[in-house]
């Protein structure tokens, strides 16, 4: 059986043109998807049933036992942390927010360690963004700043920016220019028209220099700015000014380097500066397929995009205080529910030391680095493969993922709803 127009649940591109060939409830071939998506669709070695840590061994348990364990853990905790959420669908995230409110916990999503600073900057100066379709059809200049889409979003160039035929561009592939700004010559840089190599941590200075050039204060620029020659900066600025429609895409290379959200603020201000001459937009290259969705869901349910603390009964948001890394580092929380992410692979050592001390329940179909820290891991259906759900693309467009396989695994939403029901029942009693 071939499922057409499946949605790839890997990166923020959410390619919705995948053809999946299914045989005997297994995916045998994936067409149109990139390497990352193919591997996810073809994924093997899923867990069979929930597991419980028993001393230094694992014990298979039933779903009921596992859900009961998680509910008990959250109810008995003083300050539970509900972390992750970017690898699951929006409906499950809804349940998660309700759950956090119920147990007066902290709900945080992975954007606190990826594009959190971008969101802070957007809160300060706004977001001159647009959908990918606009970029595809209009943009004749695309800038990738501190991101390497060939590795992280492989089809971004071929579907939306570099190669796709634009409605308003006659020879889109020839007319489009791609500029890559990075600290090293990445694969994307090797096919870019212009590669600006900056010294690590020099993003802010380069952005400020570009702003100065766009404002016409070229004579104030020194000979090199963070390792970039003045002539090149002037050339880049002229390319930007002469473009009819430009799009800036930035990745963690800009967000998570020195300057953090101030970098993004500067970039957004450069874009608004450029918009006086031409049309420019800026967008983040979101990593997980639904990390944008977790921000969306949190925002329309609580008012804040990430790091929401319900310990006072109302939503409280203070990045640096209510975000997962800080709570773990301060050894505040005493239980953690992790859904659809792998903090053990990314968090600092200090946080993980605390994570090892507290009870942890993880919802994830595969064993991963966090499994080693878990007391219980509940395998769930993978959104987009054997579960349906809504995900938000990197430009904020909601896309309904499709189910291509039918398995017995419950979806995130089902597991969480059961947990939530148990907890409500217990509290009402």
């Amino acid at each position, binding site marked *: 059986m071939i499922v057409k127009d499946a949605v790839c649940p890997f990166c923020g591109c959410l390619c919705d*043109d995948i*053809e999946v*060939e299914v045989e005997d409830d297994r995916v045998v*071939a*994936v*067409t*149109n*998807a*990139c*390497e990352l998506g*193919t591997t996810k669709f*073809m994924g093997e070695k899923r867990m069979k049933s929930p597991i419980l840590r028993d001393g230094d061994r694992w014990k298979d348990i039933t779903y009921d036992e596992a859900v009961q364990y998680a509910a008990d853990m959250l109810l008995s905790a003083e300050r539970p942390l509900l972390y992750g959420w970017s690898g699951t669908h929006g409906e499950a995230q809804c349940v998660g927010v309700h759950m956090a409110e119920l147990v007066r916990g902290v709900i945080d999503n992975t954007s606190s360690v990826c594009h959190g600073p971008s969101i802070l900057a957007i809160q300060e100066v706004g977001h001159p963004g647009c959908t990918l379709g606009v970029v595809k059809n209009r943009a004749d200049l695309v800038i990738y700043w501190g991101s390497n889409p*060939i*590795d992280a979003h*492989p*089809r971004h*160039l*071929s*579907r*939306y920016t*570099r*190669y*796709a*035929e634009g409605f308003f561009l*006659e*020879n889109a*592939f*020839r007319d489009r220019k791609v500029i890559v700004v990075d600290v090293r010559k990445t*694969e*994307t840089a*090797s*096919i870019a028209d212009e590669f600006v190599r900056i010294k690590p941590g020099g993003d802010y200075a380069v952005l400020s220099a570009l702003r100065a050039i766009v404002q016409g204060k070229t004579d104030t620029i020194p000979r090199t700015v963070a390792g970039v020659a003045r002539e090149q900066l002037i050339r880049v600025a002229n390319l930007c000014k002469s473009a009819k429609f430009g799009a800036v895409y930035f990745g963690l290379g800009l967000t998570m380097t020195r300057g953090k959200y101030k970098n993004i603020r500067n970039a957004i201000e450069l874009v608004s500066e450029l918009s006086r001459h031409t049309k420019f937009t800026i967008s983040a290259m979101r990593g997980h397929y639904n990390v944008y969705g977790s921000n969306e869901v949190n925002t329309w349910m609580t008012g804040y995009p990430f790091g929401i603390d319900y310990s006072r009964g109302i939503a409280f948001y203070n990045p640096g205080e209510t975000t997962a890394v800080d709570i773990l580092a301060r050894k505040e929380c005493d239980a953690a529910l992790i859904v659809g992410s792998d903090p053990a692979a990314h968090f600092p050592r200090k946080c993980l030391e605390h994570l090892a001390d507290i009870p942890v329940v993880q919802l994830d179909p595969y064993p991963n680095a966090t499994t080693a820290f878990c007391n219980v891991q509940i395998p769930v259906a993978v959104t987009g493969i054997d579960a349906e759900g809504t995900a938000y693309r990197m430009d904020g467009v909601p896309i309904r993922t499709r189910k291509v396989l039918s398995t017995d695994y419950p979806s995130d939403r089902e597991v969480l709803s059961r947990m939530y029901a148990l907890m409500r029942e217990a509290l009402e009693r």
Partner: protein
Amino acid sequence: MRSIVYYLREFFRPEWVRKFFFAKTAPLVAPSYFKDYPSLTGKECTQCLTCMMICPAPGAIAVLHKKGGWEPEIYPGHCIRCGLCVEACPEGVLSSGRILDVTSRDRTAFSSWYRLQVDDTLCMRCGNCCVSCPVNREVDPQLAGTGTSASDEVIMRIEGGRVTILHEEKCTGCKTCENNCPNRAIRVARMVEGIQGEEEAEA
């Protein structure tokens, strides 16, 4: 003394004296047989991309969609004026110097074959090659627009988790895919042969 005599003899040659008084440098023009930048002859371009295929300089020629059809465009600053595109074009769209006259008289031409190879261990399946391929774009407009291909008529598409080459014979060898592959995974082998037809009977 001998050298003075020598120089006097040298400078009082009538030829030299004439030259000295009636000096005339040649006008700054290029001769007609000079291979200048190829110019359009006005014949219709069929977008076979043979010119792009044979061009040895990067970024020197592109077949662009202009109003009223396809048209090759030469980029000075990249073009090295080798004249291979003029010689290779089967339609005679381009002209440079007297290459067209000479080749049509001698019946010389180039024939070519292409082979595509994909290294699956390097390939990221990003689809850059499939979408940038000018033949694919022509065959399947949906692919050009959205990066999605459902057609089996394209040269290559991502099928079954790898870049599958469906119609190698359609390849025109322009190497656009190779140049736009960030990982150097796809390679085009062009085999070109210079041939000459049978001499026309002396007429």
